[in-house]
């Protein structure tokens, strides 16, 4: 039997990019998860992969909750008011903007009174690196037409990866929908000029921003994923909860901002971090397979030897002697 994540690491699957269906969810929802957002509003089971303790996510959700609760959007009992919202989420690429936007939509969906009509959810995934301004504006116009044509009472709209110059399209969408429906419009943008565009307009926008991953966030993210994927073991793995990774090493990597295996240096994003960890596990698995040791089983390895099997993600610095 080939060595798998269970034998190699004591994990049910790759926590950062599961290879199999998770909790019976459709595979497309979790495929290539290391580089894709969690579309939480589509399937509640995805919550098990969501890390609520990431400080930026936690703070943003709390703040939004406080705003909507005041406006009558309550979770307990589920109820909803009549206020429409425009929410912006800023942050670097891969920071988790779309995941947070999905979590916010999920929060609105949870506030549907029993027996009431469900929220209509509209998703517009744009691509700021490949699309022109007019293309993005055209798509926003089409979205507006669709929402107006559908004539639903409550609508959640996700617009992802907006160009700063396309903010006028979002503002028009917001203005035109106000008289048609109650809506929750959330858009994301990594464009550094977006705050300037928002400032120029007179619309009230709830603004959120996701900073680079902090060492605490990184550890919380890995811990959250491991809670779902870690298999009980009798050996010392329990004493090394992040095995094959090391908490201190993760903290150093994120603080120093140089991660072994990452293609770039600088502020660490959630996507970059997840991609590095997913690749590191896969690489080690391949190494074990290449070692032709079909009997390799982490459970049989004494605890004293586990440290030697750790994967370091912080760049290893050495004194380099001239050759």
């Amino acid at each position: 039997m080939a060595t798998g994540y269970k034998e190699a690491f004591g994990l049910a699957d790759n926590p950062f990019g599961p290879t199999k269906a998770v909790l019976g969810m459709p595979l497309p929802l979790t495929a290539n998860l290391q580089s894709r957002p969690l579309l939480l509003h589509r399937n509640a089971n995805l919550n098990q992969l969501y890390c609520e303790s990431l400080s930026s996510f936690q703070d943003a959700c709390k703040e939004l909750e406080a705003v909507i609760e005041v406006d009558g959007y309550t979770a307990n009992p589920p109820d909803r008011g009549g206020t429409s919202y425009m929410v912006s989420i800023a942050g670097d690429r891969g920071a988790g903007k779309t995941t947070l936007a999905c979590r916010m939509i999920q929060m609105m969906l949870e506030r549907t009174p029993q027996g009431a009509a469900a929220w209509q959810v509209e998703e517009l995934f744009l691509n700021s690196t490949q699309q022109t301004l007019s293309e993005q504006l055209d798509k926003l116009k089409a979205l507006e037409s669709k929402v107006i044509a559908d004539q639903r009472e409550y609508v959640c709209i996700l617009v992802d990866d907006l160009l700063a110059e396309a903010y006028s399209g979002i503002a028009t969408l917001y203005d035109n929908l106000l008289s048609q429906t109650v809506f929750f419009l959330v858009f994301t943008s990594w464009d550094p000029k977006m705050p300037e565009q928002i400032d120029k307009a007179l619309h009230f926008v709830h603004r959120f921003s996701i900073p680079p991953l902090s060492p605490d966030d990184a550890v919380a993210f890995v811990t959250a994923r491991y809670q779902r994927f870690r298999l009980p073991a009798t050996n010392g793995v329990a004493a090394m909860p992040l095995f094959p990774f090391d908490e201190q090493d993760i903290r150093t990597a994120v603080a120093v901002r140089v991660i072994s295996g990452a293609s770039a240096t600088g502020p660490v994003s959630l996507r970059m971090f997840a991609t590095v960890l997913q690749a590191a596990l896969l690489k080690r698995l391949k190494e074990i397979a290449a070692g032709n040791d079909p009997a390799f089983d982490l459970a049989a390895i004494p605890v004293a030897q586990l440290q030697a099997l750790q994967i370091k993600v912080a760049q290893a610095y050495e004194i380099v002697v001239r050759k």
Partner: protein
Amino acid sequence: MAASSARRMSGKQMSELIIPFATRVLLSGVLLLLAGVFVWQVCRMWFNQSLVLAPFDFLEAGTPSPTSGEQFSRMVRAELVQLADLYSAGVVANQAAVPASGASTVAPMELPALFDVSFFESIELKAYGIEVGTMFKALRRHLESPSEITGSVTHQGTAYSVFAESRQSGLGAKGVHRWNIQYAKDLPEASRKFACNVFRLLAASDKSKHPDAMLYRAVDDEEFCLFNVALAAYDQYRQRKSLLSDADAAALLAQAEKPLTSLLNQDVVHFPYVHKLAALVFNEQKKYDLAEEEIRLHLAWLKREKRSEAAAQELLTQIKAKSLQKNPAVSRHRPLLPGTSVGSLTDDKAAGMICCFARAKDGTRYALSAATALGTSADTRIVQPAVRDGGTQADAIGQRDKTTDTIALVKLDALMTLRKDVPDLGAIGGFAPKLADGAVVVAYGFDGKRHEGKVISSGNTVPVNVGSKRVDVKNATVTSIDTGEELGGPVLTPDGKLVGMIFASSGNTTVVLPVEQVLKDMGLELIK
């Protein structure tokens, strides 16, 4: 009256006594002087070696010009004296000078000394006209049998030609030597060429009893003159190097190189000192491969002749060392500069860079570098450049002093001079404040190039593997400077503030160790 008669008698006796005595003393003195002159003349008759340069006949476009002929003789004499000076050139130490420790000088040619230089100072010029003194001199010359050189100079069109002969009385045809110089473009060239020929004749003489007399006999006049042109240019460069601009220095070296190249391009080099002079010139021109080749040829000749020459051997060592020093980062610098190669004399693998200089309260000066760059032995001598860059005992700058896990201090020798300029980056002007992420930083690489990067993070503790040991670098700045091997090298902001020293590397990122606190803890102050 009786009294006055007695006074007269007494005065007469006095004058009778004093005048004859004074006369005898005076005559004795004159006779002794004459005796001395005669003895001296007898000595000169047997041992005198004076060379007499008669005024040359000078034809200016067919018209005789006695004044020009006299002038030509004077020019030849001056050239001979200058040549003699060149061949006895050495470094005369200025006793009052305070030399900087390790200051470098340009090596003199150090040809084996030929003659007593005073001989050339005694070259006599024969005057025109008939005078008693001249007649006496001429008679004396016949008695003393000096060598006399006579000849003529013809200026026709743009060319000068010289015909001359030297004749030694009493030796008949054997004592006659003739020269014919054609197509000299001006009088200085004609006189220089002629002086060269006379000089070679004298050097080749059996009387010179010089070990190289055979060489001077074998060499062609033309080759010897070319060699002297190169030697004169190099000597000018050697003596005035510190005052010359780079362009002027290069021009003088090129002036020396040109005749040497002509000589080296010949099938056979008859005068072996050509190789040594070429090595010296190429060495100064930083053409180390050529310099090494030439000094090896000179050493091979010395070996064949069963001679040894410490200066040549030393020159080879110096050339080999310099050939490694291909850019300022790995070259020898006095005054010392930060951002240049440094290492342990005893551990040739230990090499890094000088980060900066610091001073203790008692005035002791230190160079700062990374601990591993200066070897592991305490009290070892430290050299700049490092041994791997050609550093030798002569390049020692001080003693390895205090060390920590990360840094090491070199206690600089008292007379060592230093500057705070990092090559290509400029002077270190104090410490940088905490830099924001993305701030630009610069370093100077062992490749002699400026390396620019950005701050990736700062203020973190970064673990570094030092052999089998792990050292935690606190408050480190991690940058995207991709140097790597410049252990101990300074990292600056673009405006010259010191961020710290390069301590470790990985991929294209570098860990920079802040040194401000380290110096403070050691009671040292940055020299800025």
